[in-house]
């Protein structure tokens, strides 16, 4: 008799070994599959690297399902949705977990629509309730509220988990070797309906990888003052970021936006100047190890998340911080 399978799915994880999102996802997958008493498999779509098998062993994955059709070489939504649908038809996982990336936000719900099953995004926690049903705690109302969802009978249960939701933890016993199995998918006839005319071109260092981030908000007062954020970022060896209100007003580029509708980051140090700490912003940076807040309003929400706070006008403090950081 075959046992139930819980599958975690990733792609693009092989570029430089496993990224921390993948390790988080495997950690969560291990916990949930233990609670459900299922096997834990890792579906890797597209490019493969042998290091993934080592990562899998560390995190207690039973086996890897590898799909390497040439059609999966780069991400294309129609092909990926079809690949996942074929995988689910073949392997019937009870649940399928993703780490929530920009592309997963599109692919996970489309897969649910295709298979007629349930899907929950913005997952922050996953467990099994007293009746043995999979339960997801998800962020709602921009991050200040949590919504709890319980899956019904229809399978697979599809969940996307926010980066930074759990701390990666290797499995207690790394067990026997991980079996790597090739999954044959027929994707030759999938027509990609959306054509890329002009690809996105990443500018500057990635916020997702930054160890130090300096973010600015409305408290900067005017668009020209965003320069102070860029100068401080440069002086401390970090990357400049922005809150949604100033991106909406055109003070900073959308690719700099931190938050639920922007980027989810987890640097070691996050300096927020003139940012009020709206939940939608904090959803993007609350995983930072240390948050420093500079705000004129001593009651600003940001101070509830901050390790260090300065109550004051960021236009007075920032130039001094830039000077002090540069003189080192």
């Amino acid at each position, binding site marked *: 008799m075959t046992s139930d399978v819980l599958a975690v799915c990733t792609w693009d994880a092989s570029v430089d070994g496993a990224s921390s999102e993948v390790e988080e996802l495997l950690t969560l997958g291990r916990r949930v599959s233990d609670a459900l008493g299922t096997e834990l498999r890792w579906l890797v779509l597209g490019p493969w690297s042998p290091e993934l098998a080592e990562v899998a062993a560390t995190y207690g994955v039973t086996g890897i399902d590898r799909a390497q059709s040439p059609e999966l070489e780069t991400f294309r939504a129609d092909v990926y949705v079809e690949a996942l649908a074929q995988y689910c038809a073949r392997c019937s996982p009870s649940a399928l977990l993703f780490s929530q990336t920009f592309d997963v936000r599109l692919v996970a719900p489309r897969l*649910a629509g295709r298979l007629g099953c349930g899907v929950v*995004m913005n997952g922050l926690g996953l467990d099994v309730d007293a009746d043995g049903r999979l339960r997801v705690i998800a962020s*709602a109302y921009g991050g200040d*509220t949590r919504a709890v969802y319980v899956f019904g009978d229809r399978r697979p249960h599809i969940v996307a988990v926010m980066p930074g939701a759990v701390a990666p933890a290797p499995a207690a016993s790394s067990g026997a070797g991980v079996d790597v199995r090739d999954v044959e998918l027929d994707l030759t006839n999938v027509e990609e309906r959306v054509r890329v*005319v002009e690809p996105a071109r990443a500018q500057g260092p990635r916020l997702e990888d930054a160890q130090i981030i300096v973010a600015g908000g409305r408290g900067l007062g005017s668009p020209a003052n965003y320069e102070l954020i860029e100068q401080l970022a440069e002086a*401390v060896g970090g990357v400049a970021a922005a809150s949604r209100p100033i991106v909406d007003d055109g003070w900073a580029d959308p690719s700099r936006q931190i938050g639920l509708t922007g980027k989810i980051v987890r640097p070691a140090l996050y300096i927020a100047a003139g940012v009020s700490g709206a939940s939608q912003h904090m959803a993007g940076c609350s995983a930072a190890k240390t948050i420093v807040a500079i705000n004129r309003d001593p009651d600003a*929400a940001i101070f509830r998340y901050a390790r260090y706070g300065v109550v004051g006008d960021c236009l007075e403090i920032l130039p001094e911080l830039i000077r002090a950081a540069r003189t080192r």
Partner: protein
Amino acid sequence: MRIVVCAKEVLEPDAVNAYALAGRLVIGQDGKTLSQAAIPRLMNAYDEQAIEAALRIRDAGVDCTIAVVSAGPNPADVLKHAAALGADELVAVPFDTSQTDCSGIAALLAACIRRSGGGDLILCGRQASDDDQGVVPAILGELLDMPVITIARELSVRQSPDGPVVRVTRVTPNGDETVESALPAVVTISNELGQPRYPTAARTIAARRMQPAVVSLEELALDPKELQPKAALTQLFVPTVQGNCEFISGETPTETAERLLERLRADGLLE
């Protein structure tokens, strides 16, 4: 061409957050309904921007009708606002949406769009500001067998020898990406589209006379299984945030800045 915009009524998110932060958010007996009468209800802001996107396509000279569809316990107010913004047609599906989930809503919208004249371009807000799930447009695309293009900041429609084509600029984590697809298609609109227009006084008055076409659940002839929640909301709660902020100050901004940097260096966070 027929543009269909899906619009949802939500509780004003800033008011919800203000109550949540103050520890005064009231959650009903069922543990999952926010029942504070003081919190205003309005159209989800991203959906308002989806209507704006449709209006810009019309302004650009594309011959189109703009239909706005809303399903919910009381879709009338949202549709009145849609009319004031410039919608040509209003479709209401009165339904207690708490009885279903996102998959059920998508099934309902798909059936409604099919029965009320179809759609060449379906526009939705990128997500609703209450549950933040953002899954309905993608499921809708699957059910209608249309491609789905998410997180648009700009879009335009043009005729090609093979039929109408939509060109969309998407806000991706790596910057803007431009894509094209033949219609029909589903496109979700993000806040980067910019401020939606305000309803004019004349339109607001005219909107009062516009009556939505009311489509009942029975008319949609949905299989009850389609409305059964597959991932049911069971609880809402406000998480506690434990503040442990250490405030740093000095006689002058210079001193404050130096003290702060000293701490960050002592913690090994800065060199």
